[in-house]
């Protein structure tokens, strides 16, 4: 039961991140190959704001011990701020140039988190993460409540994203994605729309990062690698690029299958082999879906 709850929580976190990627890539056409950066900023900011001040053994410089609500707001705000800083150079570029610049920013951030102890204890990371509503939720069913909270957040975010995608704002973003010149020709402020979509997606990615910190109860640089970005891309492609429901379908399928395989009882050698083999089916799924079903499994529900 706890295991199922943890899979649901993890899949909800990644659904949220994939929704953010869908806003960037699927709806606005901004190929963000560094979405893990905004995810990491959200998680780290939440940790720094809510953790206790450093004790003798800790190397980090700052711990504010603020309530988790402040941590959530701060984490989202920092992700948006980082998006504003990186968006200025990134959004002037298109297609693979945009992909490379966002990717480069994520690698720089990763390297900084890895090498500076003052922010996040360097490679060791931060492990004093304040769980949400720790005193409010009944302690015996705490996991159930947290999983429920994550699912509730996911549902609200999905409704919000769906409304956004169907609004005139979303329609304009799709118009810019499909034909930027034509959108500019009918006097749409292309640069402003792209920046707003970028900031909104980053806010959602930052929120997903905070939920991820709740889930793992620790943040460290090796949790925030390019693999997170690629996982979100795989989930989005499986579900259907451009479809909010697809983001959910893809993420739940991906983590459902991955975790279902993990519970199969195996000898140590076989488990080792299986863990090495694990990327293969996901890579194959990505290749095959892009070729034979580019609209993804839930593509018919695209906006």
């Amino acid at each position: 039961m706890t295991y199922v709850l943890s899979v649901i929580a993890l899949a909800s976190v990644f659904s949220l991140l994939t929704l953010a990627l869908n806003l960037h890539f699927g709806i606005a056409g901004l190929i963000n190959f560094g979405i893990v950066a905004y995810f990491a900023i959200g998680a780290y900011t939440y940790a720094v704001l809510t953790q206790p001040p450093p004790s003798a053994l800790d190397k980090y410089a700052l711990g504010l011990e603020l309530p988790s609500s402040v941590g959530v707001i701060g984490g989202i705000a920092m992700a948006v701020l980082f998006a504003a800083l990186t968006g200025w150079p990134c959004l002037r570029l298109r297609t693979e140039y945009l992909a490379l610049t966002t990717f480069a920013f994520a690698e720089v951030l990763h390297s900084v988190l890895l090498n500076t102890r003052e922010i996040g204890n360097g490679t060791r990371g931060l492990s004093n993460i304040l769980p949400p509503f720790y005193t409010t939720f009944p302690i015996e069913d705490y996991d159930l409540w947290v999983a429920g909270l994550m699912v509730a957040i996911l549902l609200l975010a999905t409704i919000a994203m769906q409304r956004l995608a169907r609004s005139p704002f979303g329609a304009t973003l799709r118009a810019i994605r499909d034909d930027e010149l034509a959108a500019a020709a009918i006097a749409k402020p292309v640069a402003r729309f792209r920046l707003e979509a970028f900031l909104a997606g980053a806010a959602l990615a930052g929120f997903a990062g905070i939920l991820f910190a709740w889930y793992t109860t620790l943040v460290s640089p090796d949790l925030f690698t390019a693999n997170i970005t690629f996982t979100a891309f795989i989930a989005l492609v499986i579900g259907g690029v451009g479809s909010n429901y697809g983001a959910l379908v893809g993420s739940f399928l991906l983590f459902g299958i991955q975790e279902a395989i993990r519970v199969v009882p195996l000898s140590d050698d076989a488990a080792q082999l299986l863990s090495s083999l694990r990327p293969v089916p996901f890579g194959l799924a990505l290749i095959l879906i892009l070729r034979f079903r580019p609209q993804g499994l839930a593509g018919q529900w695209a906006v």
Partner: protein
Amino acid sequence: MTTIQTLVFGLVTGCYLLVATIGFALVSRSEKFLNIAHAELISTAAFITWFLSTRQGFPLLLAAVLAILGAAVLGVLIGRVVYWPIRGSGAVVLLITSVGVVYVLHGALETVIAPGVYTLNTAGEGVIDIGGIRIGAYDLVIVAAAAASVLAVHALLTRTAMGLRLRARASDESLAAARGVDVSQVSTQVWVIAGALAGVAGVLLGLRGALTTDIAFDQILLILSVSILAGLGSLYGVVAAALTLGVAMEMSTLIIPAGYRTAIAFALVIVVLVLRPEGISGESVRARAA
């Protein structure tokens, strides 16, 4: 003296980067997308060399030749089976597909060879002392291989009919096809050459030091940095960019902690992409970027 010694190390690193990047640049110039899986071919070739020479007792040279052949075959196989059918889907779809290829090759490699650290048996390597500068015999092999690769690619592109067809297709595929160039055949040739170059780079990677099963990720970061510095799709810019980055990376360790090396390489990448997306050499991409 340490400075000159570091400079020499930097040039050797640059020569390796040159071989690693030139195949990638060839693909991005003629197939028009960033093949993130290029580094997986490099690490596959490195591990074929390792497997044949240390596990099977093949002579190092024979193992190296077989690894280069293996990488060429694997390269053309992936190029034909995975990339060719979706060539019309655009650069972004091809780029994301290559991430899928990374997952497949990486998973396959770690399944065949358990995750860990491996080294080629290079104990017999001699060290040559030139006026106080020490250089390993294998470092000379790396420099020679880089020079040979560049000259071979240059001769192929400028002196042969095949090179002419390749350049024609790279500059305008439909025009080349209309003029009777078999674009499908040219694509096959590109994948063979790029795969073989990845194979050479893999062998050199093994000669340079320890191999880890996840070494490809660091390599693709370096390859991307070099090719952005050079200007995406530019072949001759790669020579200057690889040597510059190799020297800059080794020299920077004299001043800045080595851990920040990637951060600096990528900060440089961002600056180049923003200020001069066409790179050191290469035609303007402003029109496309605008």
